[in-house]
């Protein structure tokens, strides 16, 4: 049996753990414009990132976007996941296919679509001007709202599919029993379905939160030059300024914050509803 997990383990060790270890080692080096990297063993990059108000602000923006996007995806995704889970017949197969359809389009292509919709000369502005509701264009592109909207469309299928697979496992007669005992639909949702779907809520929210924290293409294309999230900031350090040690430190800070908040959030949610 242990031999069965060997290929996957080797793949992960080679493709995931080895680069991470190397990156972590880089994060302890020092940057030099002439030599790129000076071998060292210092936490200076981590300290500079944590004490720098600019990067604290970038992390704050990232957390806000990730939190609101996850919340919107959960709120919008739960009813859809419930409907999908309770559906029978070929409609279910079609709707499942439609749910995953956005994932068949690349992030960049999807963002390009949003750009043509939200630009100052885009479809939305042109429509509003044609109806006489606006005289000049309203700024929709390059706003935090555009980024959240763009990210939600990317992550929503993940939330819906995760939730619906868990909701499918909740026997329908549990809901019917509650209704027979006089519970209103909202009470059934609050007292029966949601607590039973909690593993799905936790898994879906964790998955979506991680995806949001690491979003790259959507914030760059829809947020514009002034809007900065962590993944583009990490990329800038590696690619634009070739400061690999600092970029590596930023990447590990992002990893630690994402991991910490995901674990803490999941634990909190489970503890709250276990009572």
């Amino acid at each position, binding site marked *: 049996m242990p031999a069965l997990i060997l290929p996957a383990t080797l793949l992960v060790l080679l493709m995931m753990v080895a680069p991470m270890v190397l990156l972590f080692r880089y994060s302890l080096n020092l940057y030099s414009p002439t030599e790129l990297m000076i071998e060292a063993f210092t936490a200076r990059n981590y300290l500079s990132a944590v004490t720098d108000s600019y990067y604290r602000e970038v992390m704050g923006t990232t957390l806000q976007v990730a939190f609101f996007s996850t919340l919107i995806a959960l709120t919008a995704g739960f009813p859809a996941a419930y409907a999908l889970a309770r559906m029978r017949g070929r409609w279910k197969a079609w709707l499942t296919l439609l749910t995953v359809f956005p994932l068949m389009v690349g992030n960049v292509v999807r963002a390009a679509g949003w750009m043509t919709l939200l630009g100052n000369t885009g479809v939305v502005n042109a429509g509003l001007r044609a109806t006489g509701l606006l005289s000049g264009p309203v700024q929709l592109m390059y706003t935090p709202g555009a980024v959240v909207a763009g990210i939600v469309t990317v992550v929503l299928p993940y939330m819906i599919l995760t939730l619906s697979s868990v909701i499918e496992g909740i026997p329908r007669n549990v809901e019917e029993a509650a209704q027979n005992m006089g519970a209103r639909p909202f009470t059934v949702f609050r007292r029966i379905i949601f607590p039973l779907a909690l593993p799905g809520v936790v898994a879906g929210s964790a998955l979506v939160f991680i995806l949001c924290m690491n979003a790259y293409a959507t914030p760059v294309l829809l947020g514009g030059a002034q809007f900065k999230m962590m993944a583009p900031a990490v990329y800038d350090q590696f690619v634009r*300024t*070739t400061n690999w040690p600092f970029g590596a430190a930023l990447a590990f800070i992002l990893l630690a914050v994402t991991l910490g908040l995901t674990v803490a959030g999941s634990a909190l949610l489970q503890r709250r509803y276990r009572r």
Partner: protein
Amino acid sequence: MSDTGSMRRRTFLGAAGLGAAALASRRAVAAERVVVGTWGGDYGDLLAKNVDEPIAGKLGLEVLHQTADASPRKAKLIAERAARRGTLDVALLSDVDMYEVSRHGLLDTLDMGRIANAPHIVASLARPYAIPQIYSGQVILYNPDKVNPAPRSYADLWDPKYRGRVGFSDLLYSQITSVAALVGGGSMSDYGPAKKALLDLKALGAKVYPSNETLAVALKGEEVWLTVMWLARGYQWRRSGINLRHAEPAEGVTPILYQGAIPKNAQNKAQAYAYLNAMLDPRAQAGFAARMGYVPTVTNATLPDDLAAQIALTPEQQARFRLPDYEYVAQHAAEIFDFWNRQFKA
């Protein structure tokens, strides 16, 4: 049994022979292959149409493009610096990026004797580590219906009457910082005064767009009226119907040069030299000029008069060139980027 055994042996030997032949032919193909790290889009298409197919192809070279923006390709060259066998045979970058890569010791010093077209290179554009492929100049682009009289100096972008109407491409952060340095009383070797000048411009509502293309959309929609850009891009944008003129800044035109070089760890150096030579061919140079508006870098390439009038830089303009200080930019790259990101854009 023995028959079957002999058949198996023959089959095996035959298959082995075929395998060896296939390997040898693959090696032969690989020997004529040249991998070029380049921009995609229009530039990549032009490279294919003007260099790869008509010139390099006839020499028997199989040209493969590795396309990406300049920054990731530069990062890749740096990432591969310890590798004995690099993935690129020819690296194409702007002069500022190429200098930085060369400074890290990643490029061969070119043997110009192996490049037949090298003697035709415009002397001021020649570098020991790269050939100049195309070039243009940094100018002010403006909307003639909105900006009247025409701007004469970079300082005109700081005029309060253009509040909120000046826009830049985020990709040109280093160039715009040099412009601010000149306006603020600094020089190409002292960007210190750029900080205050950039903050003044920020207070005047200057806009930053994430790419050249998004800036073009803003110019077309008359969201902004003025920018600093390459003359060649102004030519392309005018051709695409954007209402633009260009003005030569009184501070002098800064040339932007696109170069080709051979990484030290390139695997096909002979082919790389042949490719660099093909890029300097007058036919290839004229093709880039007609479509993209970049000026040839060789003296034996001539342009039609009407095209030259739109894109060429006169000898007087060339004499007044405000040349970049590559070493200063390389030394201060992180600082320039940080200020742009944290203070100007924030």
